[in-house]
């Protein structure tokens, strides 16, 4: 099966570099290239590609907004953010907007192929470089307790410790203890990283994260 791919990036050199990567793979078909967000959104609606590679910063519409539109229109296009930014908050924002992949532009063709294939099949792909520890594939995280999963999910939605404590009917101090234990088990240093690692290791699913409360 051929994967139809759309590529949107305002920088011609990077765009042609990535396009070359995509064209090398026999199972991929690059159906369109766009140099801004508005054009990308038009082409996605028109061509309905399987995967769209979107730059975050683009003139017109930024990549995250395009991803949101795709999500709210329930289109069957899987989004991979393709960016120079390694900020974890961008990863979270992209995932919240419905993207299923986050890849840095320095990605190797092999990694990009894996990423495209993963998201085309409905999976989640995060660049190993977005958090340095995430590259460690051999790490097997310790199982989180049910309560710890709950704490992590609520905290990942941005709730304050106070609010998490209120919702779970536990003390703020207990929330902090749970968080510390979660970080320890996942090998993360903070909330965002814990969430990304939990997603990567399949401890929580993207759907759980996106669930509205």
């Amino acid at each position, binding site marked *: 099966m051929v994967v139809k791919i759309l590529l949107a990036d305002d920088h011609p050199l990077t765009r042609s570099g990535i396009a070359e990567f995509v064209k090398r793979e026999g199972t991929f078909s690059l159906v369109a290239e766009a140099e801004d967000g508005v054009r990308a959104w038009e082409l996605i609606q028109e061509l309905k590609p399987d995967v769209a590679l979107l730059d975050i910063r683009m003139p017109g519409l930024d990549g995250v907004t395009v991803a949101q539109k795709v999500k709210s229109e329930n289109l069957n296009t899987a989004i991979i953010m393709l960016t120079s930014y390694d900020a974890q908050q961008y990863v979270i924002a992209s995932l919240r907007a419905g993207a299923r992949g986050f890849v840095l532009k320095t990605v190797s063709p092999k990694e990009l192929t894996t990423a495209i294939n993963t998201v085309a099949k409905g999976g989640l792909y995060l660049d190993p470089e977005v958090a340095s520890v995430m590259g460690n594939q051999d790490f097997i995280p310790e199982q989180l307790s049910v309560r710890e999963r709950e704490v992590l999910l609520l905290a990942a939605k941005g709730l*304050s410790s106070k609010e998490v404590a209120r919702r779970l009917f536990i003390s703020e101090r207990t929330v902090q203890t749970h968080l510390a234990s979660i970080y320890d088990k996942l090998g993360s240093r903070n909330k965002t990283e814990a969430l990304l690692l939990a997603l990567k290791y399949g401890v929580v699913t993207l759907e759980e994260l996106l669930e509205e409360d």
Partner: protein
Amino acid sequence: MGYMLSRLKSKYSRTRSHFLAFLLFALTLPSVAVMLVAVSGMMSQERAMEAAVSSYVQDLAESMSYRVGSDTDVWTFSALSNFTRFPFFSWGPSIPGWVALIDQDGRIIIASPGAMNIAAIWRNDLPVGQAIRVNDKEGEQYTLAIYPVNRPGGGYVIAAVSWSQLLGGLVGVVRIWPVLVVTIALFSFIAIRLLWSRVVMPLRTIASEIDNMTLGKDVPENFEASTIREIESVQTALQRYAQAAIERDNLRNRYVRDIVKAQEQERMDMAREIHDGPLQDITALVQQLHITLEDDNGDMKRIKRTEAIAKSVVRELRALCDELAPPWMDLGLSEALTEVAERLSQAYDIEIIADFDDDARNADIDNERILSLLRIVQEAVSNAVRHGAANEILIQLSRDAEENLLLEISDNGKGFDAGNINHETLRVEGHRGLASMTERMALMGGKLRITSEINEGTTIRAIFKD
């Protein structure tokens, strides 16, 4: 602009001089008019009185000389026994003057009371047949007329009227009021002159001082000491204003100098970072490429090394960009704060907890203000680690009772005596951190509060509106 200003100024100064001229004119004109009227009134009154008195004494002398000339007895009888026949001579004080009959040698033959002082006014050059005004030795004024008696043997009739007797107090009043008016006019002139020299001229000096003053540079000092309190307070106010302008300018210059210095420092830091980082790496990259190209085997290990170097250049440049202008600030306040907190935690290897209350988390803050808040967090964390040796920092975002947003950065560091911060010393030593945090908050319409105690850690509070 300059042209408009000067036009505006000249327009105003013209109106101003018109007004003053009008004021002086309005004050002067009545005085002059009153004085002129008074003088002319006095002169015509004087002339009228003169004429009346003259004709009176002339008539008197003439009729007397006629009557005395036709009555020979008067020359033979003793004056005292016969003067009843001449009712003139018995009028006494009832006539405002006196008459006297004298012979050719000037001896008084007969005279009415009051004529005794004839000697005091008698002069040899007195004309005959015409009224004349003379003064006696006491300065008393008389108008007198001398008529020859028409009979053999000659003799003269002298009739005289004393001005003070004839017109009494009237003369005084008539003469005193022009004097009063003239005095009033004089005082007016003096007042106008004083007004000119003490008010108008100092005001002009002040105006020209203001014109010539370079604000922020000069303080007008060559004012003459003024006796007028209002002028003096205008002078003092002007001097104070000029002084304040100088201080303000100095402050601004110093501020600009500081900013320029900080800017240059930042550029130097940036240049050094680029030089030590990406530039070195790209140089190495080029070297590796050269070797690879010259190496016929196309050593894969070398190409892999080249790729690794290139990737590290990208990382370094990305970090540099993030440092210069964090791109994640457009994700929103809490995301930006979380990102910066996590990065700082990693960079300093300390624990930073970012905790945002529900009602504050989604506050709508524009990018410019988010950047300011990020810089405040960076500065606060950097201070906490470098000066306070803190290893735990809590960043909280909440709302206070007045719905203000409150960003609190509290650390467990050494703290300092917050009541004893000397901003000037800090400035001179090149520590603009606290000042720049405060300025950033002021610029976004908020406030910055620093609380700290020795061994109690430090809390920085940024209070602002969304």
